[in-house]
């Protein structure tokens, strides 16, 4: 199910110089802001939750997920070079699975690690906040990567749709319509984080059971469907 060559190629495509630049800049910014906030405000649990939740989990993780998830397959389909990969004697689901592993790995490294560092800078992991948000970022990485990888195989405008989901659905509708929060990767991962921290600061609108079922279902469903989609892929011309 896992092919090291495909993985190596995907890593190289994902961490090419400009992509690596923006992938690295976002986490760096989070850490810099944490340092500034700590210097300005001192160690405070609520502030830590605001920064890690509002900036980290709500904005940074989805954007890194979009870049890594769609970037793992989108450009190849876009410029047609995916046919060279598809013509190799590899099962299409294997290709998808390998790319998913790479995308998940990249998203985790660039989102969960800075989250942990920021958490420790902000309040020294008081009330398990740093660990809770790191777990949330890890869980969200898996779901986001699977979801956006699927988008990458379905549409040429995967990045736009991914961003619409992450920014408009989760952020805008999520804050206006309570029901939209049930269908939000961010809330599912927060439910897991809530269980880990056990505190009152990290909360979610979704129960742990619902969240786990949704997370597993979305990840598995998206991966399976992306594999199916790749089996019958047709290369269209520009637009």
């Amino acid at each position, binding site marked *: 199910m896992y092919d090291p060559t495909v993985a190596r190629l995907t890593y190289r495509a994902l961490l090419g110089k400009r992509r690596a630049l*923006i992938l690295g800049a976002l986490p760096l910014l989070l850490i810099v802001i944490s340092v500034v906030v700590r210097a*300005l405000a001192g160690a405070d649990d609520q502030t830590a939750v*605001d920064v890690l939740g509002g900036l980290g989990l709500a904005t940074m993780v989805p954007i890194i997920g979009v870049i890594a998830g769609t*970037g793992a397959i989108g450009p190849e389909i876009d410029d047609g070079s995916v046919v060279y990969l598809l013509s190799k004697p590899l099962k299409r689901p294997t290709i998808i699975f390998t790319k998913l592993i790479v995308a998940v790995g990249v998203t985790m490294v660039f989102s969960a690690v800075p989250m942990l560092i920021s958490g420790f800078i902000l309040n020294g992991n008081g009330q398990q906040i740093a660990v809770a948000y790191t777990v949330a970022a890890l869980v969200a990485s898996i779901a986001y990567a699977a979801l956006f990888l699927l988008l990458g195989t379905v549409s040429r405008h995967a990045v736009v749709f991914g*961003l619409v989901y992450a920014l408009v659905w989760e*952020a805008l509708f999520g804050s206006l319509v309570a029901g939209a929060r049930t269908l939000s990767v961010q809330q599912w991962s927060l439910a897991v984080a809530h269980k880990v921290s056990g505190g009152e600061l990290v909360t979610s609108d979704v129960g742990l059971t619902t969240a786990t079922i949704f997370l597993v279902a979305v990840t598995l469903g998206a991966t399976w469907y992306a594999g199916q989609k790749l089996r019958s892929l047709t290369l269209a011309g520009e637009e």
Partner: protein
Amino acid sequence: MAIDQPLVPQPGDQTRIHNIGYRNYDGPRLGRAYARRSLYSQSLRGAYGLGRSVKSKVLPMLLFVVMCVPAAIMVAVAVATKAKDLPVHYTRYAIIMQAVISLYVASQAPQSVSRDLRFKTVPLYFSRPIETADYVRAKFAALASAMFILTAAPLIVLYVGALLAKLDFADQTKGFAQGLVSVTLLSLLFAGIGLVIAAVTPRRGFGIAAVIAVLTISYGAVSTLQAIADAQNATNAIPWIGLFSPVTLIDGLQSAFLGASSAFPGGVGPTHGEGVVYVLAVLGLIAATYGLLIRRYRKVGL
């Protein structure tokens, strides 16, 4: 040049030049200004998907509708309830809808320039009479106009609605004019930032992600820091932090000079003195993006 070559063939050489009747073009040449205008109008149409496939019309049109519908609803409510004033100020509208505006510029800026880079058509443009500056000006103006249409249309809806609801004419016209100034600056600023980022990458998808990352992350970071400064009672720091993201720049500028109520935490916008810094920052950024684009196209145009 072969002019100095003797046309008399060498003995034994059978090479001849035959006149096979090709004609020179002697019609009117429309020139540089015409080429620039065409590039402008094509880019502007392209920003709304006109003259492109149905698929590429969907997103810009959808965003345009999403931009206007809340304004129409507000107007309907104001007319029906005979309100004394519109629920939202003209200047505030773009700040509320910033996610839509960001998505629009992120999706259309790469569409405008990245594909030219990717398919290496840029040198073809420069084989026409236009210069680097013409290309950059046409693209910049086209995207800024498209953004202006996107942001000014809901204001027009609000204004017409306000007049229909028989609100105070002078008051509404003043607010409408202030709103138009604010969205003009916003359009220029966002178009500049979007184009600079998009012109660096030939990958459309990556360009979109990069533009949206710059716009939303900077806003997220700035508003987080402002909220914390507000909680710490460091209200002096709030306007200075606001200088570091495009949305808060526009917000600060219009609350200093255009009579808008600030969306900053605590509702305290910059003073007139600080507002001057905001104006300089906005104009400086627009000029800087233009300069960067010229520099970039001097390289890739070859």
